[in-house]
């Protein structure tokens, strides 16, 4: 090595942002469904042709337009003469509120426990794994029914109860990632640079977990929406006359042999949203897996 060795690294900066890896149609179809539902929920008062609560016994059980109904009630009316389309639109608010709200709470719970367990190891880890085992041994539906019956039903309570049962996947994933990341060289480098554990968790570790955790969040959100519908169907969730897709099915179940569409329409809505969110989550998984290789 001579004194004239160039000390300047002279390759030019390449400013090309790496493009999004190919994801397949699932991400876009699922994303579109989710986005559409969010828009429906936000603009419900503008989009709904009628009030979701307005009853008119003279106009009860009108068939939807594709079965010979009128455009005044495109998806027909229920047994109390309420417009099904309007109730469907307002019902999306419930589903999304429960979906997002539950995930927010359960993510905080699960990721907090997962980071503590993964980072501290030892007894903390043993205790958290014990909590996980206890949680996994509780049948969600049964326990949720019991808690709902015991504590009453409101939207907030519903989110809390569901969140109490849906943190396990967040825990499992964040614990595994924390165990791996705590030995990553950049985490050691950050410790060697004098950063506190808190700083390292917030700035170094969490950002490197977002990919997998977002996937967990979408899948658990679909789970939460299904559970909300199921509980509402059983009369333990959203209280009438509020509109919820599960509740709409419950109210229509007496007519299922004669007016099946009354059950099918909210059922189809639940199916579409849950499938959309799941597709979106799987699409994200593909994107992150493709991106992980670089």
């Amino acid at each position, binding site marked *: 090595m001579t004194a004239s060795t160039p000390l300047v690294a002279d390759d030019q900066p390449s400013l090309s942002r790496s493009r999004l890896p190919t994801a397949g149609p699932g991400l876009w179809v699922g994303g579109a469904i989710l986005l559409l539902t969010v828009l429906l929920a936000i603009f419900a008062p503008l989009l709904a042709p009628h009030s979701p609560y307005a009853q008119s016994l003279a106009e009860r059980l009108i068939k939807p337009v594709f079965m010979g109904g009128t455009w005044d009630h495109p998806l027909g009316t229920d047994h109390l003469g309420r417009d099904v389309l309007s109730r469907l639109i307002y019902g999306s608010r419930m589903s999304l509120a429960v979906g997002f709200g539950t995930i927010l709470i359960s993510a905080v719970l699960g990721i907090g426990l997962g980071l503590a367990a993964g980072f501290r190891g030892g007894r903390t880890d043993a205790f958290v794994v014990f909590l996980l085992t206890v949680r996994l041994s509780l049948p969600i539906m049964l326990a949720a029914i019991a808690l709902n019956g015991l504590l009453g039903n409101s939207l907030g309570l519903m989110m809390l109860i569901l969140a109490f049962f849906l943190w396990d996947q967040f825990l499992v994933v964040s614990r595994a990632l924390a165990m791996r990341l705590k030995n990553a060289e950049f985490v050691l*480098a950050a410790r*060697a640079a004098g950063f506190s554990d808190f700083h390292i968790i917030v700035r170094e570790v969490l950002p490197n977990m977002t990919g997998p955790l977002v996937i967990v969040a979408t899948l658990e959100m679909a789970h939460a929406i299904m559970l909300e519908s199921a509980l509402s169907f059983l009369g333990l969730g959203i209280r009438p006359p509020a509109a919820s897709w599960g509740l709409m099915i419950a109210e229509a179940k007496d007519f299922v042999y004669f007016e099946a569409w009354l059950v099918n329409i909210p059922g189809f809505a639940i199916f579409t949203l849950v499938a959309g969110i799941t597709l979106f989550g799987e699409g994200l998984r593909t994107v992150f897996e493709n991106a992980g290789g670089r």
Partner: protein
Amino acid sequence: MALLEISDLNIEVVTGSGVLHAVRGIDLAVNAGETLCIVGESGCGKSLMALSITGLLPPVARCSATRLAFEGHDIQHLSRRELEDLRGKGIGFIFQDPMTGLNPTMTIGRQLMEVHLRHVGRDREAAKTAAVSFLTRVGIANAATRLRQYPHELSGGLRQRVMIAMALMAHPRLIIADEPTTALDVTIQAQVLSLLKSLQREHGIGLVFITHDLGVVAAIADRVAVMYAGEVVETGDARDVLADPRHPYTRALISCVPSTTPSPAGVSVELGTIPGRVPLLHGRIEGCAFAPRCALVRDRCSTETVPARPAGAVEICRCLFAIEKREFFHA
């Protein structure tokens, strides 16, 4: 007063198969502006020793020392907070792998600025200016543009430069570099070495450089410590140790370095190897740890305790026959 003084450092690692005595009674000293190279095979405890200096050992490892002092202050009993302040600001670290040593989710500008914000001052503009100036100083052109890039957009050599800049950001007085050039190809390696050397001279930083590459030692070391099985077997001025090693292990290490001078036509020179394996470090080692692999071993080697004493121009050598056996080496 030495910048860093270590005496009788011991590190034990608790493993599934018992307690491993990874580092056994090491004494070292580094002065300001001096480069100390620590050489040894994989698993001889050199990285653990480096980590122990600022308390970065993994939880399974325990360390104890009669003295572990930085700038005259014993740092063994510092609180966690004081230790965190010392890391980065007093003692900077450069790690081996530039591919995994930077956070992939943050731009390099952010990563550099955070070190400044943590140790130097809360002013974001000043932090940015400092980041640009250090990137320029480690020889990165277009520093202002580079700040906005993520680690995956940079080559290995550039990332290692970024890591060096990061270690310098808080103006440490001592830098510990754990094989910082091992993952780089030779031309980049030479650039990084001369960069480190010039930065060290410019700032008067003490440098502890851990490597298994004797070529690197020859290029940058002022002093060298050769480690074997958790012990320092030979210490001294780099030129003296490389020119006239007194310990058979150092001798053997040097013979393992391939030469670039062509051998006489038709004659193939066999590359030296050291037979045997590094001993297991579970129990106490009787006598000399290197005895089972030593070409010059005698009966006394496996029973007698080996004193650390000067031999020839070498400061300290741990061999019973450091002085007497010289003729064997040259035979």
